[in-house]
C-alpha cells in the first residue's frame, strides 16, 4: 500500500486560514461574553449607585432604619430591606436545612435503589418549577392555611413566603448534600458497620462529618438562592419595608423593592431610580460573598479520603 521509498514531505506548509487556526479565536471571543456579562453587571451597579451615593452618604444608607425613598420626605436606610431579606432567609433555612439534610441522608444512606430512582427525578422536577408558581402557591394556598391557624397573619406575610422559599430550595440542598455524601467512600461505611454501628450511627457519626464541607456548601448555596429569590416574595411577602421581627407581618425584601420600582418606573437618572442599583449592589455583594464562601468551603475543607 505505501509507496516504497517515497518520501512524504513532512514540511508542507499549513494554511493560516484553516479552521484550526481561526476557530480558537472565535471560541475565545464567545467565551469572553460571560466575562463581559460580569463586567457589565459590576460596572452598571457601581456607576449607577455611585450617582446615588453622591446624594446619600454610604453610612446612612447602610445603617439607616427607615426606607422611604419614594415619599416626599425621603429616608434611605436600607436596613429594613436587609432585615426583610434576612427574615425570609432565616425562615427558609429553618424549613429547608433540616428537611433537605434529612432527605439527603435518607436518599444516600437508607433508601432502597428503587425508591431513590423514583424520588430523585421528583426532586429534580421540584427544582425546575418556576418560582412564580411557588409564589402563587404561597399566596393562594399557604397563606390562607396560615390565616386559619393563626388569625392575626397578614395576607402578605414573611412566614408564608419564607416557608415556600424553603420548599423551593429543599431539592437543591437535598441533591447537593446527597452528592457530597455519595462521594464518601463505601469503605468508611463498611468500617463503621463492621464495628456494630446502626445505620443512624454510621450516617451521623461517619458519613455526615466526612461530607461536612459539601453539606455546608450546599447550605450556603441554598441560602444564597433564598436571598436572591424574587417572585415568591413579591407575590406573597408584601411591600412594606419595616424592621419587624414578627414573621406574620408583611415585609419587603431587597428583590421585591427592585421589582416594584422597576415596574413602576421612576424617571431614569433620578435618585429614586438609582436606589434600585444601590439595592441591587447590596444584593449582588451579599450573594456573591455567599457563593464565594460556598466555593471556598467545599474546596478548602474537602476531605481527602
Amino acid at each position: 500500500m505505501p509507496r516504497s521509498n517515497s518520501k512524504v514531505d513532512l514540511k508542507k506548509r499549513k494554511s493560516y486560514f484553516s479552521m484550526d487556526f481561526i476557530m480558537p479565536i472565535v471560541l475565545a471571543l464567545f467565551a469572553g461574553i460571560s466575562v463581559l456579562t460580569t463586567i457589565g453587571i459590576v460596572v452598571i451597579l457601581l456607576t449607577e449607585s455611585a450617582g446615588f451615593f453622591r446624594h446619600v452618604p454610604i453610612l446612612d444608607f447602610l445603617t439607616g432604619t427607615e426606607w422611604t425613598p419614594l415619599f416626599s420626605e425621603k429616608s434611605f436606610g436600607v436596613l429594613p430591606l436587609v432585615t426583610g431579606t434576612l427574615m425570609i432567609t432565616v425562615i427558609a433555612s429553618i424549613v429547608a436545612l433540616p428537611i433537605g439534610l434529612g432527605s439527603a441522608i435518607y436518599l444516600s444512606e437508607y433508601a432502597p435503589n428503587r425508591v431513590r430512582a423514583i424520588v430523585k427525578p421528583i426532586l429534580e422536577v421540584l427544582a425546575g418549577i418556576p418560582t412564580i408558581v411557588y409564589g402563587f402557591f404561597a399566596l393562594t394556598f399557604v397563606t390562607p392555611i396560615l390565616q386559619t391557624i393563626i388569625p392575626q397573619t397578614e395576607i402578605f406575610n414573611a412566614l408564608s413566603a419564607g416557608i415556600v422559599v424553603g420548599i423551593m430550595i429543599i431539592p437543591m440542598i437535598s441533591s447537593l448534600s446527597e452528592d457530597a455524601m455519595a462521594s464518601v467512600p463505601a469503605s468508611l461505611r463498611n468500617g463503621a458497620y463492621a464495628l456494630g454501628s446502626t445505620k443512624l450511627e454510621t450516617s451521623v457519626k461517619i458519613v455526615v462529618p466526612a461530607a461536612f464541607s459539601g453539606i455546608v456548601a450546599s447550605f450556603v448555596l441554598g441560602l444564597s438562592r433564598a436571598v436572591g429569590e424574587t417572585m415568591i416574595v413579591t407575590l406573597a411577602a408584601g411591600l412594606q419595608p419595616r424592621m419587624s421581627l414578627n414573621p406574620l407581618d408583611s415585609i419587603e425584601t431587597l428583590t421585591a423593592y427592585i421589582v416594584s420600582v422597576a415596574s413602576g418606573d421612576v424617571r431614569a437618572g433620578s435618585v429614586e431610580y438609582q436606589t434600585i442599583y444601590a439595592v441591587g449592589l447590596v444584593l449582588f455583594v451579599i450573594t456573591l460573598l455567599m457563593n464565594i464562601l460556598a466555593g471556598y468551603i467545599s474546596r478548602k475543607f474537602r476531605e481527602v479520603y
Partner: protein
Amino acid sequence: MSIVEIQNLNLYYTEFHALKQVNMSIPEKSITAFIGPSGCGKSTLLRTLNRMNDMIKGVRIDGKININGTNIYDPDVNVELLRKNIGMVFQQPNPFPKSIYDNVAYGPRIHGITNKSELDEIVEKSLRGSALWEEVKDYLKKSAYGLSGGQQQRLCIARALAVNPEILLMDEPTSALDPISTLKIEELIQELKKDYTIVIVTHNMQQAARVSGQTAFFLNGEVIEFADTVKLFSNPEDQRTEDYITGRFG
C-alpha cells in the same frame, strides 16, 4: 473446640451462585487462611461470618453458620451485637477522617461507653494490642490520615480490637502495603492469635504458609480442600490444590 461452624452454606448474588455447599469448622484461638484465585469466593465467605453481606442487594443465603452455638442467620439475631463480637479488617486501610484517638474510641462510644478515663484505657490497650502505641502515643489527637499505610492498617486493627471481639476477620490486610509493613502486620497477627480467633483472606501463598494454622483452598465458590496449613502445602490431597500452590494457574 470450634467457635465457628459452617454447615451446607450456599450464597447467591441474585442469580450467581457464589458459594456452593460450604462446610467448615474453625477452631478457637487459631489462624485460618482462605486462599484461591481471584473471584473464587474467599471474601464472600468471610463477609458471611459477620453478615456484612446483608448490605449487598440481592444476596440470598441458605445453610447455617453457628458461632458459639447460635445460628447467626436466625431472624432474631442482633446484627450490631454480632458485628461487635466479630471484628473486621479490610484490604484498604479505612480509618475514619477523625483523630487517631477518635478512630479507636469510635466503637466503644457507639456501644455506650462515655467515661473519659475508661475510653483512654481502651484506646491505649487497643493501640498496644496492635503494636502501634509507641509510634502514636504523642499524636493521639492528630488526624489518622497523617499515618503511613501500614500504620493506618494497624490503626484499623486497633479500632477492631477496641470493642473487644472474639473473632477477627481480615480480608487481604496487607495487600496494599509495602513489604516492611506487611512483615509487621504478620508478626502482629501471630501475636493476636493468643487472644483471638483469626480468619484471614490472602492472595499470597507464602503469607498463608507463614502465618496460618489451617488453610482453606477455594475454587469457583467451592472449598476444595481445608486442612492444616503444613499438610495442605506439603501434601495436598486434591490435584487442583496442588496445581494452584505450585503456581500452575491463578
